[in-house]
């Protein structure tokens, strides 16, 4: 059969009202400093993992705040928990705990789904 090369392109739009923001809510409830991030990116600049692979805590935190969780699920496991991000954060976000809580929230979500 002739192939015409048509395909469906996924909408890039973030549909805020439809998205699932429960991971972000889970983290914010347990680590309030998660709320005060101003997206300066210092954590990502200091990050060893981020310098070698596609891993950015700045990006991770904004994505889960928007409920774009799929991209984060695998990325978050790359963190080596060295804690350099905590040392550089100008707002005093407890970044290591944020990462642990995101991982925990995903784990609980998977367990509940089973």
């Amino acid at each position: 059969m002739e192939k015409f090369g048509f395909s469906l392109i996924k909408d890039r739009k973030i549909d805020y009202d439809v998205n699932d923001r429960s991971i972000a809510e889970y983290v914010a409830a347990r680590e309030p400093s998660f709320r005060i991030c101003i997206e300066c990116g210092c954590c990502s600049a200091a990050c060893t993992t981020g310098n070698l692979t596609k891993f950015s805590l700045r990006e991770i935190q904004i994505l889960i705040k928007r409920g774009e969780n799929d991209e984060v699920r695998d990325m978050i496991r790359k963190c080596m928990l060295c804690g350099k991000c905590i040392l550089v954060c100008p707002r005093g976000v407890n970044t290591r705990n944020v990462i642990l809580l995101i991982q925990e929230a995903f784990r609980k979500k998977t367990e509940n789904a089973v």
Partner: protein
Amino acid sequence: MYDMSYRVVVIGGGVAGMEAAAQLAGRGCKVTVFEKEAETGGHVKNWFHLFPDRKDSREVLKYLDNKINHSNITLLTGVPVERINTSNGLLSLFAGDGKEITADAVVIATGFDLFRSEKKEEYGYGIYENVISSADLEKMFRKGEIRKHDGSKPEKIGLVHCVGSRDEKVDNLYCSKLCCVTAVKQAMEIAEYIENAKVFCFYMDMRMGGAMYEELYREAQEEYGISFIRGKVSEVAPDINNKLIVKVEDTLTGRPLKMGIDLLVLMAGMEMSEGGKKIALSAGLDTGENRFFKPMDLHYASNKSNVDGVFYAGTCTMPMNITEAISHARAAAADVMDYLDSRTN
């Protein structure tokens, strides 16, 4: 006995005008204040609480009212000044009521006008009933309730920064400077009025360069759970349920974002006042690229105009907060006194 006091006219009875008048009266000048509105107080009387300490605006007005209640001050309300004539080395002012008055010095304190939000048609002010301005919201605060047009309580509220500021499309290249902190203050107040409200600020940059502004921003995030989305709203349109659909590029994820909002507040910027423009034209006073009055020097002569005997106080020269307007007015009074004394000695 002939009265040897200096006669100074202050144009505008807002914060800067009142403060300048009080300072000059205290130094022995006979001061006439022209205020175009029926009452003094300028824009402050339309505001509820002030940033960053959430002080009731009426406290500031009380302070100023007390100060201008002075035997050397003649207050003329409901009288706009139409033009200034500077020929023959005399300063003659022509008021709206047809009166002419001469003065030894003039302090222009004509203030600002709020940007008319309907000019940003894509945000739907004056078209969609649940799109309001920051000034409209202050009226709701004063009334004690925040409601949508149909009387119901909004749950999701958006605040759009930079409406009429930093925007070449409305010929305002400058930053109005106060809208960011006003948005933060208003977002917190909304969160206090409406339990479990979801409040979003759509901003281009957070410009929190005043005393205690950054702290307020942090408090809004930490204690009030206000969400900040970086991106300028491109357009607003209602959906079938009359929810306002806001379209914005979420520049921190690098993706377009859409969101339904119940009540949208536009943070209107500050512009040179229409009254000020008329006076500038009549007296040959220089205005800048941003249309505000242009002081002789931005560093050390921010109260001086290009016309002898004419001085500036407050937001007629640039956007300022109340603290800055009061300081600027005091500096204007000092410049006026220097000028008057140097002329006679």
